[in-house]
């Protein structure tokens, strides 16, 4: 029988005492997932802009494709990446398997669909008149696109936070391509994989402490999301305080 209460008490002790092993794992998690999201944003944001601003055939198919990929099981992606990075795989020569780099790349790929899907809908939900407005004030095509992107900034931030949320909490990719290596100079164990390792080893206090910290991080992230949404809601209310009263609004004349 596991001593749960004793474990929890010990866990708090570890958290409060600032145990280096514990916080080493936390900082690795934050570093890997943070870098992954930044990396994914570097290609995800331009891609989202491309999809949102350009009219092309198959646009709906592409959008559906990315929103479907949000639900991709992380172990499946982990397995695919393992096969690609392993010695016999197409990118095996890079020697990336079981390194921090492979975790960052894996998580970046994992969150790309989130960044693109939310990003595209954020850009598309900006009043189409903003684009025309910027142009009538002298903006070039790309300057007008940036003006629209600025209006979508809340949605873009939201997509980044949601991506980080997903990355830090996932297990499949970090376990399969990271390898959960807990020693040496290139450690690849992070919050989720370390929890599973300590639990298996019976070091329940450590597992609980890590679990609590993971929950705190995710809670903090969600708090930010809620506050951001609330702020957004207030802005929306202020924008049209009498929207409820408007039974019918004359259609803008052509």
């Amino acid at each position, binding site marked *: 029988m596991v001593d749960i209460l004793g474990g929890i008490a010990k866990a708090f002790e570890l958290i409060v005492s600032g145990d280096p092993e514990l916080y080493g794992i936390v900082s690795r998690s934050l570093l890997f997932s943070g870098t992954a999201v930044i990396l994914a944003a570097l290609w995800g944001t331009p891609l989202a802009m491309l999809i949102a601003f350009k009219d092309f055939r198959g646009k709906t198919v592409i959008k559906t494709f990315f929103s479907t990929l949000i639900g991709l099981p992380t172990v499946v992606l982990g397995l695919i990446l393992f096969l690609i990075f392993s010695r016999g795989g197409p990118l095996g020569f890079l020697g990336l398997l079981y390194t921090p780099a492979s975790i960052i790349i894996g998580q970046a790929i994992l969150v790309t669909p989130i960044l693109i899907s939310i990003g595209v809908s954020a850009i598309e939900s900006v*009043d189409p*008149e*903003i684009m*025309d*407005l*910027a*142009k*009538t*004030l*002298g*903006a*070039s*095509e790309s*300057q007008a696109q940036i*003006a629209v992107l*600025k*209006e979508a900034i809340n949605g873009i931030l939201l997509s980044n936070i949601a991506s980080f949320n997903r990355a830090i909490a996932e297990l499949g990719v970090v376990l399969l391509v990271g390898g959960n290596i807990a020693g040496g100079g290139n450690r690849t164990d992070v919050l989720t994989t370390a929890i599973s390792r300590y639990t298996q080893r019976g070091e329940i206090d450590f597992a609980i402490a890590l679990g609590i910290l993971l929950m705190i991080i995710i809670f903090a992230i969600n708090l930010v999301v809620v506050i951001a949404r609330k702020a957004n809601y207030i*802005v929306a209310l*202020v*924008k049209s305080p*009498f929207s409820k*009263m*408007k*039974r*019918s*609004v*004359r*259609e*803008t*004349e*052509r």
Partner: protein
Amino acid sequence: MTITVELKDITKVYGNKTVLDNVNLQIREGEILALLGPNGSGKTTILKILAFIENPTSGEVKFQGEKVNFKNTEKVRLQSTIVFQKTALFGTSVYNNIAYGLKMRKVPKETRDREVKKALELVKLESFEKRPARKLSGGEQQRVAIARALVLKTKLLLLDEPTANLDPKNAGILEEVIDTVNRENKVTIVMATHNMFQAKKLPHRIALMDEGKITEVGAPAEVFGKLSKNLASFAAVENTFTGTAKATAAGTSKVDVGNGVQIEVTAQRQGATVVFVNPQDIILSKSAVESSARNVFKGKIIEISDLDSLVKLKVDVGKPFTVQITKRSFSEMGLRLNAEVFITFKASSVHVL
């Protein structure tokens, strides 16, 4: 006389709908030209073409004598700007909104600050720089939009129903601004309107529009003088009705505008007539009021839209009348859509054109 813009045989087709049908129009330097016509007559489309954000399906636009290449309008767009009917603002401060166009033109910061301040003074919004633009009232927002356009000092200023959604106070401020920048800064202005009063007062010339065509162009007096020819165009303008007048024994006239609606006017008229009633001159009540007013009609509220301090209602009494009442009256009377109401106005408040 210098021509600022010339539209030659302009046609615009959306899908299978022809919005502009072979439009020819010359806009003279320094004038205020009003496009007057009902909703859907193509006014906004002309303005968008003049702002170079919409390209004509066929035809040619000449700006200051040069043919406009609609495949590349980035340069020519700097010479023309538009204020939309539906106020569009960036979700940032008033300053950033007004300074946006100047930034696009790479105007240095000190000049920008100065120009923004001047523009805000012009629209009577001094020291509003730091306020979040979208938190302002509707009228103030529209004034920010005007200031944002004025600050650019473009050759051509386009206004799409600049006062349609404003209460009289804000509308008055804007009309004053339009007049001032035209007289003092010699800005050429093209404005779309379906407000009869505005069309008679502000512009030097009027282009009457109907179903994508310009039916008449000329000085206001001239255009209003040729009523019979343009009856159809006038008919769709707000609170403007066409009908046949018959003199009454009492020395007034009754104008039958159709659907059983007969409007009594003080002028003695006979035959085809156009009448106009200012929305502010109409009294709205829940039951018929006994008064000296000669025109009382029973109808139903078919549309409610709110302006700043006012509510604009459309009442169907056989013909649709636009009525303006204060927000306070609106809530105290407990009005809602489809409510039965009476409208009352004096024969002497009916303008006969």
